[in-house]
Each structure stands twice: as C-alpha cells, then as structure tokens.
C-alpha cells in the first residue's frame, strides 16, 4: 500500500469514528431527555452541536471550504477555534444559569423561613386566644 492510500484509509477511519461519536452523543442526550434528566431547552443546543459534527463528518470538504473562506488554511485549527468558542459560550451561559438558581434558592429559603415564623406566630396567638377564657375562669373566686 502506498503512503497516500494509507493516509486515505486513516482519514476515512477517522470519519467513521467521528460519525459514531456524533450518533452516540445524540443518543445519550435523547436518553437523558426521555428519563427527564434534561430539559428540552438545554437538549436542543447539544442536538445542534451533534448534528453539526455529523454534517462536517459526512460532507467531505465542507470543513476545508469553510475554513478557507474565513482565511484559516489549516482546517483542524478552524474546527478547534469554533469548538473552543462554543464551549466557552456554553460555560458562561451555565455560570449565569447557576447564579440565577442560587439567587432563587436563596429567596426560596428566606420565604420558607418567614412563612414558618408567620405560621408559628399565628398558632401562638390562636393558642393564647383559646387559653384566655380558661385562664379567666381559673382566676374567678370559688
């Protein structure tokens, strides 16, 4: 086998692996959705990512064309740049989501504590009201 043929075989093996990876990731996301471990809102982004990988793997030359179009002459570098940006955006997005959830959790805990206190005050005052007549009777001279 010539060096060129060997190179081509390796490349097509890699394609098969990338396609398999995209399918596995999409399947995993789907299963998480089905088990209600994931909201559709978040699943959509990962599906889009999985499909993008799949398209790049299936459509030979697309990555090269795209990266040349934006002036990057080593296609894998373009792929890494886009992937890095995507992961960065997702991480910032998740940070803001976690922050929002922290605020809401805080507000919830405070609200529950206030409600509990309000309930106790309510019970105390109704207990006092119930006991008041008894107290009055006990104070009466026999």
């Amino acid at each position: 086998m010539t060096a060129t043929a060997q190179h081509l075989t390796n490349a097509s093996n890699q394609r098969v692996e990338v396609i398999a990876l995209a399918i596995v990731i999409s399947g995993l996301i789907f299963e998480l959705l089905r088990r209600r471990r994931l909201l559709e809102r978040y699943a959509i982004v990962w599906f889009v990512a999985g499909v993008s990988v799949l398209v790049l793997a299936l459509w030979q030359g697309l990555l090269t064309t795209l990266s040349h179009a934006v002036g990057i002459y080593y296609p894998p570098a373009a792929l890494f740049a886009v992937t890095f940006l995507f992961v960065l955006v997702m991480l910032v997005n998740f940070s803001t989501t976690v922050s929002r959830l922290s605020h809401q959790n805080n507000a919830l805990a405070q609200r529950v504590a206030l409600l509990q206190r309000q309930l106790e005050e309510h019970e105390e005052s109704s207990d006092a009201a119930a006991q008041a007549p008894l107290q009055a009777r006990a104070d009466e001279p026999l």
Partner: protein
Amino acid sequence: MNRYLAIVPAYNEREIIAQTVREIHAFAPDFDVLVVDDGSSDGTAPAAAGAGARVLRLPFNLGIGGAMQSGYIYALEHDYEVAVQVDGDGQHDPRCIAELLRVLRETPSLNMVTGSRFLEREEAGHRSSASRRAGIRIFAAVVSLVTGQRVSDPTSGFRMVDRLGIALFARDYPHDYPEVEAILLMHAHRLRSREIAVRMRPRTSGVSSISRVQPLYYMVKVLLAIFVTLFRARPREERREPAPVAVKRGVS
C-alpha cells in the same frame, strides 16, 4: 367553599386582572377563583385580591407551566372536583365556562374539555395572526396524529379538567409552552379529552408568552418534546372508579 376552581395565571396583568376575576365571579358563580401571580412586579396580586380572588404569589417568575402547576397543586390539596384554566389577560371569555362544565359533567368518561377557536367555520371571534395559525396547524396535525383524534386548537389554554386531570397536572406539567404537551400528557396517561367551540377575544393587555421569544424555538422545543414523549412508557389504563373518599388523618 365551592367544588370548582378557576385557575388564572397572571404575569404583570394589573390593568385587566380585576375585570377577569369579576367576570368569572359573575358568569361562573360556582367557581372559586385562584389567581397565580407569577412574580409580577406591577401589583397584579393586590389588584386580584381586591377583586375577591384568592392569590398565590410566586416568589419569582416560573413561567406559565410552573404557575399553572401551582394552581393544580392547590386544587389537589383543597380537593376540588373540577379546575378550569382561564388566562388573566382577558382572552378567555368566562361566559364559556358553564358550557365547558356542562360537557365535562354530562360525559363521565371525559377528563378534559378544551375550548377551541377553530371548531366553528364562522369567522367570528379572535383567531390570531396568519403566521401563528400556520404554526398551530402544524401542531394540530401532529397532535391529532399522535392521539388518534382530531385536535383543532392544541395551543388553547382554555381547558377544564376533572379530579384525575388535576392529580396528573399537579404531579407533572410541562415547563415552557405547556399547552400542546399537556394534551399529549393526558393522552399518555390514557385520560380522555375533547374540544368544544368557544370564541376568544383579542388580548386587552400584556404580551403573549410567545410573541417575544423566537417562534422557531417554540416549534422546535414542542416538537422535540412530543417526539420524546412517544418513547416514554405509557401507564396501563386505570380502572375508572369514583374517586375514593378522602381519608381524614387523626380520626380513629
């Protein structure tokens, strides 16, 4: 206390909420009115309470799904027989509640009755914009296919459920854009529903939960949710017996 509950989700609807509450009291006097204030910042809750509604104040905005579900949990815990959802913005005409109730009561096998804008051919009433109607038609086709019965207005939130429906929605209710998925949820639990024709009015205040966000996301999210639902297990058919009498705790 009445046996029927009207759940009114409201987010910043101060201008219209009192009128909605008063109309429900006037045209459906058998119904208690519960306004779920979904974290409004404009004084919706006091306006609703002033009109005589019970009010649930959510500490922050949960979105329509979370707000509605709190209403259903309230209905379950207070043992209501029937719950009807009436939008706070005045689109749903409380005059139609009596008709929904009549249909639900006279068909014991029925668990949900929905008011549809599209059942009658006449061009009366508010039927929303052309692009939105196109989206609704796609959902209608998909939902009709999945449930095996014609559903003309799957995005209508004007719906009434019985005890089984209340119990189901209290346990499980879709998050954002819940209307279409709620129909499929009923179907997945083998509860029966049908539509009757109602007129809807153009909203008089506030903004639709859909107009601001991208309609594309709405379509994709709901279609994905429908697709995933198809792969979840459907529980077996429950025996249809009258609801058991609530057991009182602490009574021997």
